[in-house]
């Protein structure tokens, strides 16, 4: 039960949302689906004075604009799973969404934008979004700005948003015929991810590990995978690089740091092998 009194606001536009945040500095929290913030309030771990719900702000759409797929900040995992555009251009994102722990209730409530902003180490979305080289489009009192790459995830549970800003959408460049792989390791059905690996191969290959560190780990692929088919040797070399890339492994109640470091390689291997199978077929 949320016992502290708070004001609930549901702005119907980005401008209104920004206005509300400007009026309530330091005491407001923004929710997309609310699957993280609301339980926190229930447990009395967070006591925002104003809860700003973006679900009526018109940010739930998924559109293709030119060669960019725009995923609205409040698009739910279910929306990702049922979107033909995501299926065609971002199958990795759909695969990630379909494996979200919590089943249909969470898939229909939680949002990929919310997960990116929450930046929790043990979340499914960050590594996948990073591997797809997303651009975050952020609105604030001073207008719009864009964030890419490692800037998206400054630290564990630390958002790249500044005071008064909201995430409005994620943009993904359409990459024709990019091969991809995704693997999630968890302890059991109800467990948060312990380690994930997301890879997108092609012109600019990316392999990103999630869960193993405070923030998603971009594996330095060097020249290994660029424009080359996956072979047992290149996979082996990449797995080695992946295993070596986890310098400060994450630790929580579900798995110790030594374990996360140890599974980084195997998890990377499985994502790469998935991509290799696509190559064959």
């Amino acid at each position, binding site marked *: 039960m949320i016992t502290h009194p708070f004001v609930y606001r549901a702005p119907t536009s980005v401008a209104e949302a920004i206005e509300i945040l400007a009026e309530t500095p330091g005491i407001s929290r923004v929710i997309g689906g609310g699957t993280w913030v609301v339980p926190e309030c229930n447990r009395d771990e967070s006591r925002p004075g104003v809860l700003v719900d973006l679900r009526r702000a018109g940010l739930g759409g998924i559109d293709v604009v030119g060669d960019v797929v725009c995923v609205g900040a409040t698009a739910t995992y279910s929306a990702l799973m049922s979107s033909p555009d995501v299926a065609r251009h971002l199958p990795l994102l759909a695969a990630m969404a379909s494996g979200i722990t919590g089943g249909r209730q969470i898939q229909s409530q939680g949002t990929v934008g919310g997960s990116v902003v929450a930046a929790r180490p043990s979340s499914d979305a960050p590594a996948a979004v990073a591997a797809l080289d997303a651009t975050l489009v952020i609105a604030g009192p001073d207008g719009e700005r864009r964030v890419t790459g490692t800037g998206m995830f400054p630290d564990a549970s630390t958002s790249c948003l500044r005071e008064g800003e909201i995430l409005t959408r994620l943009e993904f460049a359409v990459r024709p015929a990019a091969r991809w792989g995704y693997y999630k390791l968890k302890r059991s*059905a109800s467990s948060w991810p312990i380690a994930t690996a997301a890879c997108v191969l092609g012109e600019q290959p990316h392999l990103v590990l999630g869960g193993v560190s405070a923030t998603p780990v971009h594996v330095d692929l060097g020249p290994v995978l660029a424009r080359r088919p996956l072979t047992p040797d290149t996979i082996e070399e990449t797995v080695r690089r992946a295993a070596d890339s986890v310098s400060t492994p994450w630790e929580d109640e579900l798995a110790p740091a*030594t*374990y996360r470091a*140890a599974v980084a390689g195997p998890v990377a291997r499985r994502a790469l092998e998935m991509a290799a199978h696509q190559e064959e077929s």
Partner: protein
Amino acid sequence: MSHGTAPHLDEARPLAGSSVRRHDGDAYVTGRIGYTDDLSLPGTAHVVLVRSDVPHARITVDVRDALTRPGVLTVATGRSLAGEFGPIPNAMDPVPTGGQPLEIHVLPIDKVVYVGQPVAAVVAESLAQALSAAADVQVHYEPLPHVLDPEAALAADAPLLYESWGSNVMLSGTVGSGDAEAAAARSAGVIHGTLRTGRGAPVPMEPRAYCADWDARTRRLTWYGTTQAPHPLRHAIAEFLGLRERDVRVVAPPVGGSFGFKNFGHPEEYLVCVLALGLARPVQWIEDRASTLRYGARDSRIDYTASYDDDGRVTSVACDMVANHGAASATGAFGMAFAGSLAMPSGYQVPDFRCDYRVVVTNKGPWSPLRPFGKEAGVLLMETVMDAVARRTGLDPLEVRRRNWVKVDQFPYVTTTGLELDSGDYEGLLDKALTVMDYAAFREEQTRAREQGRYLGLGIGFEVLPEGADIPGALIGASDISTVRMSPSGDVTVLTGVTSPGNGNDTAIMQIVADRLGVAMDSVSIVQGDTDVCPFGFGNVSSRGILTGGGSAALAADDVAAKLRQVGASMLHVDDAERLVLRDGFVSVDGDPEQALPIAVVAHALYTVGYIVAPDVEPTLESTRTFRMRNIRHHADDEGKIMPFSTFSNGIYLSVVEVDIDTGVVDILRHVMVHDCGVMINPRFVTGQFTGGVVNGIGAALTEEVLHDREGRQLSAGFKTFLLPRASDVPAFEIQHQVTPSPFTPLGTKGAGEGGVACTMASLLNAVNDALSPLGASINELPAVPHRVLAAIGGGER
């Protein structure tokens, strides 16, 4: 699978033995069952507990600010109650067995001993007001050093939780007989090992909920709540409050699972009474999940030495068990260590056996009784030993078990801990399992898989579970009283002292009674869980719902049936009442439809025209019965042993797992279960009960573990950090039933309440180790979470 197709036990008794559906299942699945939290008595005040932030400290509590908050009615502390109320009664007392005295207060008076321990109770008009005001209770902590693990707690200079004890050992003792060391010295080989089990927690769907209502006019207290044992709790509440037992009524509404956690002895059971008395209005406390998960179980370490001969026979087992109880409690949870060690030899012939056990207190939340009440310790121990003997001797693990089992013709068999195993056919269990599992084919598949880099393992688990406990000096007995009464219209009401944890034992008791009276199920109703209405009973502990409640109901129903026959014989002008048959709602002569009367007509006649139709028959259609279990023995024998259990249900499970050696993840591929709980009244419910037990065991074996940080704060406080198996984590169960009736119980039943947990833990542990054996790796600690498995392989250290 045998759902709904089990053969009837008896032509004349078509219901008992068949898988009829629950009489109230529709109410459960459509949300019409009223749980305690649904009561909403007018004027109910709500309790919120303020809990300790620290593991060990002297406390002073300032409630002045909280008292000024809106809606607050009172704020109770240990100090405010201490003048009027003493410690709460113990469900079981360790003192008679040489343990320390327990003094658990409703709220701690001057010090806390674990994080999360309640220190104050805020009572307000609404839950929200109580929650809000709870933040304004000021607790000043004067920290004391704390201990979390039993090794540290046993050190000479360890901080003491309860200073008057002089140590942190609540209870210690030795069970067994013979000379294990001498036997080991004579034997061909000796095995040393250690087994650890992590801390589990009770997880009923419904946490605890208590509501007390003091009626100042009648000066009676009515207590509603989640309890397995209404009559024992009434006794305890009356003793605690200084009321006469008759002035306390305990009502147990339907519960969403019990598992031992809801027996009695929790401080909050008494807290709501004290507050209701003070406020003269209903007061309720509803537990949240984090509170439930603060109670523990298992968390034990066993160091063992076992010896064997070349033919694979185990010649001795000696072990030292240290149980981490957490803080002390009045629930009798310490008994899990005692019952667990008594059960240790399982169904094996171990000539020389000894277990030295110690129950150690630490600054964690207290143990709670939790099925299978400590008996998993011995099952894990013996099944580990059997596999170790197989490895050492080169014998097949199945063969080692066959060589060590108590044989069919040896029952009743007295184990080296003094338990008299009533009956069983352990080889029969295995034979049955092997009809489902092609053992040789699996071994071939395993070899092929290993060539492909896949690691499959098969594990065996065998359990013998002492049930139907009767503990001297405690309100835990192997009997219950049932009343069966028939109304003038032929309606049958069963009143019984056993309660239902939600598993359907009420329906099964109705089946038993309906059969014996020859009436349809819908002519029978049952009342449980109300001390004003039901005869005395010990509730649903120790797998006794059908054993004692069903047994006594059968006897009472037979009395009423005999009366119906007498009256029917008189009305049908037959001299020999024994010729009268009760079936399908009719009393008939030898089943002849031409010489028959509806049972309702006979009942009505006895009530209304008895002086005409049956002048010699006492005019009642009611009987209250119980029985004494013949095999319980409380007088100690020459070695000081007693025999406190009625029956010994048993089972064997074969698990097949695949271990992902890169990640340590264990996947269960098959789980074959053959169990024997004697006669089954309703195979559907037995299957349901075992299914729950197996899932429980899977959780304990693979996923569920409560962790604490160094400051004693619980890291596992919800279902994202304490991982229960979900539907997709469990395989399709392959369940077989074997029926070896108990010679001692009225219906031949043995109790099915605790089955499956221990057996599954053992079969999965052994399966994982079988899979790891080509790598020369093994684990000896559950749960076998991935990082533990990977560390065993050496992967965690790479």
